[in-house]
């Protein structure tokens, strides 16, 4: 049945996340961007929401709630309306935790999942992106060579690894005999070197790092899913849906800021909102926000009900990347000179939209 009706719980989540985004995230957004730092207080409050832990099995200390990609898309949309970097900091550990919960062996689940369910924020991340031009998840350069029967040797480099400054473990995606696999790597693995925090165009409040893997030896038990391996494409699909939801929230932030500005700002004896050149741009923002959101819901629904989701996730991610960039670009234009000044948040959203659009594999739903 075609239905756009969120469940009661999803509506409650949306309202609560919106309030949190408005009261906690938005006010802290600019300062964190200027400082290129994730404030501990914000991170602690995000952790208190229990976004990751509530969706992990009770047996490992989690809340045991049914995982819902749709609910996660809705909450990411709201959090990102407040600030995209904070939304990503909240859900970056989910890319590790959900992957282990979905595809890990019993032992891997027992070892890693309880860590996400403690009092303090636990940082771990998916390491997918690589620091080479034309990065493509289908053409990874990081390689895992089997080492007899008892392990693998990982070589290569990973970049844009979220929370990498503090993450205690990484889920490294590598090419293994033509296929792709994921390997759980503790921070102190021999041969793994972790860079200083990267200096990026946008999402500056989200610390990211580069990992250099110089013949890092891992036991066979570190391979996600054990001897069966795992479905890496599913991790990519989930990350793309999450990215689409974040971009939708970012786009709404731009629209919500542009509307009152255009009504308030006057030129030639009229509010600029009364001029078609401005009004039509803003109408197009509204159109493309709906389009982004429904595409992300469609892909999230495919994941939620266990249907093939690679195509819908691709569409959701690619479409949102293009349209959020267009919306942020036009938000800057509506504000004119003020769009270029750091007193207003629109230039920040413009940088964040460009940054986020090219990233892969940082989140999960």
């Amino acid at each position: 049945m075609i239905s756009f009706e969120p469940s009661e719980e999803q509506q409650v989540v949306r309202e609560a996340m919106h309030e949190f985004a408005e009261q906690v995230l938005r006010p802290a957004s600019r300062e964190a961007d200027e400082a290129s730092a994730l404030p501990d207080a914000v991170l602690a409050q995000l952790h208190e929401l229990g976004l990751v832990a509530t969706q992990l099995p009770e047996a490992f200390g989690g809340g045991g709630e049914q995982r819902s990609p749709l609910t996660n898309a809705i909450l990411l949309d709201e959090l990102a309306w407040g600030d995209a970097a904070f939304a990503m900091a909240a859900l970056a550990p989910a890319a590790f935790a959900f992957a282990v919960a979905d595809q890990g062996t019993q032992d891997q689940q027992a070892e890693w999942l309880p860590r996400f369910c403690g009092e303090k924020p636990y940082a771990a991340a998916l390491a997918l992106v690589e620091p080479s031009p034309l990065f493509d998840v289908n053409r990874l350069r990081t390689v895992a060579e089997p080492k007899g029967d008892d392990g693998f040797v990982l070589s290569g480099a990973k970049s844009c690894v979220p929370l990498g400054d503090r993450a205690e473990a990484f889920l490294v995606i590598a090419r293994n005999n033509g296929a792709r696999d994921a390997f759980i790597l503790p921070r102190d693995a021999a041969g793994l070197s972790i860079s200083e925090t990267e200096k990026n165009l946008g999402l500056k409040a989200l610390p990211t790092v580069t990992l250099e893997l110089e013949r890092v030896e891992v036991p066979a038990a570190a391979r996600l899913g054990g001897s069966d391996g795992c479905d890496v494409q599913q991790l990519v699909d989930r990350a793309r849906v999450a990215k689409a939801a974040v971009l939708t929230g970012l786009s709404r932030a731009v629209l919500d800021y542009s509307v009152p500005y255009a009504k308030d700002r006057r030129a030639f004896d009229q509010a600029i909102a009364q001029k078609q050149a401005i009004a039509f741009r803003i109408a197009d923002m509204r159109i493309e926000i709906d389009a982004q959101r429904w595409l992300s819901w469609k892909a999230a629904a495919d994941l939620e009900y266990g249907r093939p989701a690679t195509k819908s996730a691709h569409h959701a991610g690619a479409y949102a990347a293009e349209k959020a960039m267009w919306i942020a670009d036009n938000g800057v234009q509506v504000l004119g000179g003020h769009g270029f000044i750091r007193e207003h948040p629109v230039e920040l959203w413009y940088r964040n939209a460009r940054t986020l659009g090219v990233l892969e594999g940082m989140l999960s739903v």
Partner: protein
Amino acid sequence: MIDFELSQRDRNILDQVRQQSLVCRQYARHYDENEHEFPPDVLPEAADFPELAGEMLRREEGDSGLGVLGLLVTMGEHWGDYSVRIRRPKGTALGNAALRASGTPEQREKWRSLTLAMAITEPGCGSDPSQVQTTAVLDEGSDEWVINGEKIFVTAGCRAEGVVLWATLDRSAGRAGIKSFLVEKGTPGFVVSQKEKKLGIRADDTAAYVFNDCRIPRGNLLGGKEEIPKAGSGGFKGVMKTFNMTRPLVAAIGLGMGEAALDFTREHLEDCGVDLGYGGAASGQSAAAEKFQRLEAIYEAAKLTILRAAWLADAGQPNNLESSLCKAKTGAAVREITQGCIEILGPLAISRDHLLEKWFRDVRITDIYEGTGEIQRMIIARTLFGYTRADLS
């Protein structure tokens, strides 16, 4: 519960529509090239296809709403052809939608079996219907309205058995003075003056009408309210309400053809061995594959905005903004999709041996009729800003 998957019953209905459409498509080229002919009301193959209306009306647990399903069926029919139908049902033209939206119960009952065109546009007014010049003057002696004026771009104007037209009781009253009247074919003073020659949708007749002292019964004023409401009292909004359902409908019509263009292009790309994998990055793909996937996403996005507008209507919620939104989105989407498909396939695509060039011509009207893309954006912007027509036009 949010979901986008159809029930098995609904899928069966759409499968049957698809089978019918494959038959209709065989006639598509003929009626495009022979613009003066009308496709038959019933095709010779009709006996092979059961009526679907009863099956559609029977909604069960898990089925989609009737509005949603109706638009998906509309898409499926237009995937076959814009005009050719296995059986052309009576009473499904735009004037019928207006009758349903604003006629009195007696009027709806009296005229429901007629196919009714809708006549708004005039030689001097299109997007701004407040400029309607056609007049209706009440002759109290004979209890008749006397209509004078010209209407153009009347969809199905030749085929229709009657027309719902917009005329003004008082030009100085602006939009408030505009009323809808029903005129049956054969009424003295009502002449079909011309059949237009068009870029696309050629099998769909488009007519021009002249009304010269055309007299109709007093009861033919739709809704029956003869007084002119005060300006700004919302009297005109009632007239415009019709569009909340017809805009998603014409969007679905356009998108059905856009889907046909995509399916045709996908088939040829696959035949040529172009890999349409969705897993990787744009940079790792051929330009053709990347462009095609982009068009496909635009199609999916437009479709979801249409279904959203229909779903709101099914749920009894207002969908004024969403019906404009889906119309604006789809009007632009089908232009980009069909233009892009031709670009991807190259010279093969412009041959009239194939239907792609026809879909390219046919969809172009989507962003024009039933409110241009610009009008839709105006409506959306007014809603966002809380503006009236006086603030933004």
